[in-house]
């Protein structure tokens, strides 16, 4: 029997909500299931409402889904927040019956597990409350407890066998309570573990670091900022294994400046940050554009504006990535929609940056940064890696022309150490040999050159679509929203609805040809995005004149498939 179950764990930050989800995910992946997680918590270190959700399936998981099947509430606040979602068929597991009271929920199986009580009174370790809950969950739904125990063992054995045993005991206490009071839940049952697929378990931001490594990146300069820090942390664990380095700079400006310095000298390099950091880095990004230095900038978006909501989902940095930096500054913007994308789009970002010797933004976001998926192990032999066009001195006395005017606009680049390749890079307007120059001719030819490079950039990055050749409604989406759209599409196509979807990876320059071709297929266009202004919709309209119907949310949470389906239905597909 094919399964597709989503378990949500909710409670106070610091009570093991997040780690419980991680254990479930790890063990399910080991047990051969597809997994995807969703997490949400406040910016404060401790306290506040936290949520960790794991979806398990036999088939490829497209999104976090519409909600949950089973919710485990560690405290009353969690129950209060989630109770309105307890529609018939769902299951509630909660810290009851004594900690707090619940209302009557028709058609909902409610299991009171005295997690706090058992942890405190029986186990004398309040900290193991979450393990009591997990034990109960395993017992209720037949979750593969062996693989859960293995995950727990591997995590805690570094600390001590005693801690492992304490956790085992908590698991068992939770399970025992279920056995004594309820027995198995009749609605949801996990099948037997099967053979693990050839996958790797990766978190969104970790996938960016892996993609960078695979693309040949050996330097990352950054300053910590939520939710981007974990890109740098992941990179700091692997780059130094291959003669690379992650530099924690004094601020964001120094982070990107050092990255530009490393790239100038010949090392593929990136920086990572979130919105406030891009603000600060933008001047240096402009220098990379002008001096034609490859640069990858990962922007892990969070809720804006300003400090906003550091741990919340939003897709509102697109305008900035497309248009920040003064002057006419060429750049490209890519966005990742899921964990696999984080890996491959990072490689795309490096390829574009290297090919065009310019800054390339890679957009992800707070929700995706934490999303964990089991993704197919990348086949490195199939991945194309592009390196910058290098200058080769022919030994003649001719002075090297760093900004040589070529048909493509791309000029061969030398690195310090290259014989005959000396020049002085500059952010001033310049002539071919890099000498500053502001003549009318220099301005025109150099501006033309820099823009000529990316005239056909759209052709470099495939823009996929889905659905019938003619559709009543066509959905254009980007970033994490594409996941909700993918799942919505699966449902709608299954229902026989005439709906199509376009999944751009390159957002800017807007893939005009793909958008226009797609628009020609559809009667109406819908553009759902998680921002107020309709940023991608506006960029598309600016580039093509095509005005999409907009569906904007700005509530700190990602789209769910159901609201896309609902909107498409309203539009009459």
């Amino acid at each position, binding site marked *: 029997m094919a399964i597709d179950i989503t378990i949500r764990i909710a409670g106070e930050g610091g009570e093991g909500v997040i780690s419980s989800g991680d254990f479930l995910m790890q063990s399910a*992946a*080991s047990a*051969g299931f597809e997994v995807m997680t969703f997490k949400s918590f406040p910016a404060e270190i401790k306290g506040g409402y936290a949520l960790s959700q794991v979806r398990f399936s036999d088939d490829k998981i497209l999104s976090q889904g519409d909600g949950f099947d089973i919710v485990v509430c560690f405290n009353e606040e969690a129950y209060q927040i989630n109770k309105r979602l307890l529609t018939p068929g769902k299951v509630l597991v909660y810290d009851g019956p004594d900690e707090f009271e619940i209302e009557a929920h028709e058609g909902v199986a409610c299991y009171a597990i005295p997690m706090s009580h058992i942890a405190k009174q029986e186990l004398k370790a309040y900290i193991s409350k979450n393990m009591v809950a997990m034990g109960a969950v395993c017992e209720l739904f037949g979750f593969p407890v062996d*693989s859960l125990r*293995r995950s727990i063992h*591997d995590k805690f054995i570094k600390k001590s066998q005693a801690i492992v045993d304490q956790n085992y005991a908590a698991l068992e206490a939770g399970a025992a309570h279920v056995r004594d009071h309820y027995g198995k839940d009749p609605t949801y049952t996990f099948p037997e573990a099967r053979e*693990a697929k050839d*996958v*790797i*378990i*990766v978190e969104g931001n970790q996938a960016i670091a*892996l993609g960078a490594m*695979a693309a040949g990146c*050996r*330097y990352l*300069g950054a300053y910590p900022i939520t939710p981007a820090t974990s890109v740098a942390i992941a990179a700091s664990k692997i780059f*130094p*294994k*291959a*003669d*690379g*380095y992650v*530099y924690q*700079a*004094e*601020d964001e*400006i*120094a*982070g990107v*400046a*050092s*990255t*530009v*310095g*490393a790239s*100038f*000298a*010949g*090392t593929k*390099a990136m920086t990572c940050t979130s919105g406030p950091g891009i603000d600060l880095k933008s001047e*240096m990004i402009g*220098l990379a554009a002008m001096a034609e230095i490859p640069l990858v900038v990962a922007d892990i978006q969070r809720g804006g504006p300003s400090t906003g909501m550091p741990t919340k989902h939003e897709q509102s940095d697109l305008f900035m990535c497309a248009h920040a930096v003064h002057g006419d500054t060429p750049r490209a913007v890519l966005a990742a929609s899921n964990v696999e994308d984080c890996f491959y789009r990072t490689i795309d970002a490096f390829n574009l940056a290297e090919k065009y010797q310019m800054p390339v933004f890679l957009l992800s976001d707070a929700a995706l940064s934490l999303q964990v998926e089991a993704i197919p*192990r990348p086949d*490195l032999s199939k991945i194309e890696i592009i390196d910058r066009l290098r200058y080769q001195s022919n030994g003649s006395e001719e*002075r090297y022309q760093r900004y040589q005017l070529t048909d493509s606009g791309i000029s061969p680049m030398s690195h*310090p*150490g*290259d*014989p*005959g*390749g*000396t*020049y*002085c*890079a*500059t*952010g001033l307007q310049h002539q071919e*040999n890099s*000498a*500053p120059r502001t003549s009318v001719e220099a301005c025109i030819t150099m501006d033309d050159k820099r823009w000529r490079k990316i005239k056909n950039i759209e052709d470099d990055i495939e823009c996929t679509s889905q659905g019938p050749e003619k559709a009543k409604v066509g959905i254009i989406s980007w970033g994490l929203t594409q996941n909700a759209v993918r799942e919505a599409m699966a449902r709608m196509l299954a229902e026989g609805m005439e709906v199509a979807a376009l999944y751009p990876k390159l957002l800017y320059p807007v893939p005009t040809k793909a958008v226009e071709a797609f628009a020609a297929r559809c009667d109406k266009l819908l553009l759902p995005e998680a921002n107020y202004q309709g940023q991608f919709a506006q960029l598309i309209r600016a580039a093509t004149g095509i005005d999409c119907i907009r569906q904007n949310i700005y509530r700190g949470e990602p789209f769910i498939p159901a609201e896309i389906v609902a909107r498409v239905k309203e539009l009459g597909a």
Partner: protein
Amino acid sequence: MIQNILEEKLKPKAYSSDIPSRWCPGCGDFGVTNALARAFSTNQLDQERTVIVSGIGCSSRLPLWMGPYGFHTLHGRALPVAAGMKIAHPELDILVTMGDGDCFSIGGNHYPPVMRRNMDLTAIVMDNHTYGLTKNQCSPTSQVGYPGTLSPVGNVDEPMNVLGLAVANGATFVAQSFSGKPKHVMQMIEAGMKHRGFSFINVLSPCVTFNKLETFEYWKGRMEEVPEDHDTSDKIAAWKLSEQGMQGDALPMGILYQATRPTYEDQVAMVKEKMGSVPADQVDMEAIFDSIKPGAK
């Protein structure tokens, strides 16, 4: 013929680019440029393995006129650009040339960390006590009363003790020179380049167009060689010398402080070694993937 080319290389002129320099006639920065070329020449520096990084300002135009690789970056950002370059490419010789506004005002967040981390860079500030390129505003080193264009009744701020702060921030080589004494400038640059670790050389370099007070003449009469008996390993002594210079009539000339401690590049190498680094192109990605397979520990 080959002989000729080699001999040519030895001359300071060989260390210039073919971009004509564009400073005001008489600008102090010419002295620094010449001293630099002579230092390069004396050491027969391989200019193809050398990079001069600068910010923005009159002084920061310097790498444009010089023969090595150069990077004329952004106002205030020369040091972090150089830092990344050096971390990724410790094999390069990197000099950083800045103005006083560039290094001490807008760039003021970037010199403390590279000093504290003891990066092996040679930093030269052409300190004219004003903003030349933007036509005369007060810089952090301007004297009280200096008529900067944004100071309607003259500068009201105490000038910054840049030598003392370099010592306090952990630079392991701190020196001052004066562009009116190009030979001394050259000696300081040579010593700074030879020093392993962060070298900071403040060169008083008159802005003949705007700074009508601190002219070549003015400074010439006020420079004083660091006393023979000064202990360059003594931080407190260095600090005192720098404070004394702030009185304005005995500006120390020479090396105030010099010390040895591990460079940042040493630390980076240590980190890599501890993590079992292999050459960049020999990395085993498959092993990394293996480590995150389901059930992997």
